């Protein structure tokens, strides 16, 4: 079943056309990644799914429902969670409070179970639960951002550059967790990444974005093997 389907989407920031007709879909149970250089429009696509900016042309559908013109906070209630660009955890609130904020749209009776679940996935957060978000290391903050997103019990998890600025070891750890929740819980994940190598290794399928357009798509390993992908995103730069 198609979980997320983006069809012919154009988005603008003022007069600048950031997305120039994007078609992309995510099937249930998949990990799909979108790779591309800085400024290609990857984050804009994630933001457009959440209606900010709203797609000027084209449509965004979640489980068949048109969400193009819905407001972000209503979209969350449908079962999409997002770990936004730059993590955006609440720095003055504790880890526990951050997780509580994540559970805003989730029914109260699941809170303790959900908490156990994210603490099992990221044990370090359990040790840090009374610490303020701003005092965590970069890796811990990223874990918190993902954990916070999971607290809303989503069916689709959107992640914007979870590897940004993190040590390779931490990236590996985080990606292993993503693989786990996908394999064990069947969580559908849509991942935007600059770290093409790790992202394509993890993903079932991948898309490559250049200047607001999808230029290539295919299986993760398949893309990884393509010479043009290797040349542009793996060698030299990485």
């Amino acid at each position, binding site marked *: 079943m198609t979980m997320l389907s983006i069809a012919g989407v154009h988005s603008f920031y003022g007069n600048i056309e950031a997305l120039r007709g994007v078609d992309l879909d995510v099937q249930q149970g998949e990990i799909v990644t979108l790779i591309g250089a800085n400024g290609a429009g990857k984050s804009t696509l994630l933001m457009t799914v*959440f209606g900010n900016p709203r797609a000027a042309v084209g449509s965004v559908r979640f489980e068949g429902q048109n969400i193009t013109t819905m407001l972000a*906070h209503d979209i969350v209630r449908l079962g999409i*969670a997002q770990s936004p660009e730059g993590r*955006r955890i*609440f720095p003055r609130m504790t880890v*526990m409070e951050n997780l509580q*904020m994540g559970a805003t*749209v989730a029914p109260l009776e699941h809170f303790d179970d959900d908490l156990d679940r994210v603490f099992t996935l990221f044990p370090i957060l359990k040790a840090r639960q009374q610490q303020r978000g701003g005092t965590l290391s970069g890796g811990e903050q990223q874990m918190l951002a993902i954990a916070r997103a999971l607290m809303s019990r989503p069916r689709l998890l959107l992640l914007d550059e979870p590897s940004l600025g993190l040590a390779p070891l931490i990236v590996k750890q985080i990606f292993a967790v993503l693989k786990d929740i996908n394999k064990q819980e069947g969580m559908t994940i849509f991942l935007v990444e600059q770290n093409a190598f790790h992202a394509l290794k993890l993903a079932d399928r991948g898309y490559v974005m250049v200047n607001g357009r999808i230029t290539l798509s295919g299986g993760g390993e398949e893309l990884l093997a393509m010479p043009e992908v290797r040349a542009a995103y793996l060698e030299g730069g990485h």
Partner: protein
Amino acid sequence: MTVEASRQAGGTEGTDLVALLKEAGLAALVALGLGISIIGIRTVTIPGGLGLEYRWDWVVIAVVSVFVGRFVLALRRETRSPAKRAEREVVMNRIGATVQRVSKIAGPVLVVIAIALPWMPFSNRYIVDIATLVLMYIMLGWGLNIVVGLAGLLDLGYVAFYAVGAYSYALIAVHFDLSFWLCLPLAGLFAATFGVLLGFPVLRLRGDYLAIVTLGFGEIIRVVLLNWYEFTRGPDGISGIPRPSFFGLPFSRRVQEGEQSFHTFFGLDYSSMHRIMFLYYLILVLALITNFFTMRIRKLPVGRAWEALREDEIACRSLGINPTNTKLTAFAIGAMFGGFAGSFFATRQGFISPESFTFVESAVILAIVVLGGMGSQIGVVIAAVLLIGGTELFRELEQFRMLAFGGAMVLIMVWRPRGLLAHRDPTLRLSAGGQNAGAKGGAS
């Protein structure tokens, strides 16, 4: 040699001193520019109209003291090692955190002190009156703290809600002859409605822009009150506002036939202190309700959403928080407490006019919140006692009173730029064994 290295090498007395003198000179120049018109020239009434009086000696004193003060301040800043500064910051933060922790015990202690105050041997009419005034500002500070401290919406027109509360109370009480206890919730409701009215147009604004619009809103309310003569009696104000009664028993010396007043009912001798003390306890209760409400709501989803909204609106939206409703509830609830305080003000004064609701009032209330440390409940208490009680203490200094007020603000901002108690307490703590202590949590 790099630029930094050369600066470091040259960072001895000589070069530094010139820079410091320049800085102090610049400050003195500003003082001179302001001082000439503000201090130097003064209008006095002379036979046949207004005349000017010149006080150049005062200008000289002001300029010299600014020069010396700035120089000493800059010298201290330069000579003190950054390590020491950081150390002080740590110490101050620790003090802040300790005060917060102690506030859990200190809170009830303060309440007991407040209850006992009118019975103390040293207390008299004047002290109870000032304490009432301080409590009024504490309540206003707590109300504004919801909007500014928790939700992070800079509101420069809070006095508008205070005014709406006062006028609603006065008009309802005068025209419909309803009792204080009926008018109070109505006044709060009206103020909350105005909070929502203000909230709608400013939902998309943030920071400076929000501050400007709220400032304008405050002025609009005042100007309307001033000019809508048929309704508000304009600059004449509303007089003869009914005083509150003790569950139907008025605090009057003379009693009408067949009715009882407070002192006859309890068999006491008439004393004007009864009403003063009653007003004092009334505002104490109202303020405590405000505090209790704020502390509880901080632990509820809406309260947490306010704090989250203050930190990151985009993150909030991506977590499913509706920023519109969250902001409107903050405005409405903050305004409601402003309205309650307003009705208390009206009933205490017995007379209100637009003059009582100028921008200066908003500024003072905001200063209490900011100096106390945004979001800190006990900080508001300390700041209100210092600013309101302090200026009353300095009343003997007459015209220098506001100078002391300004000086205190400058000092606090130099030493504690984020307010006296900038430390934020988590809304929940670990209980001994449990994982999440639920609603149990810290007060701050």
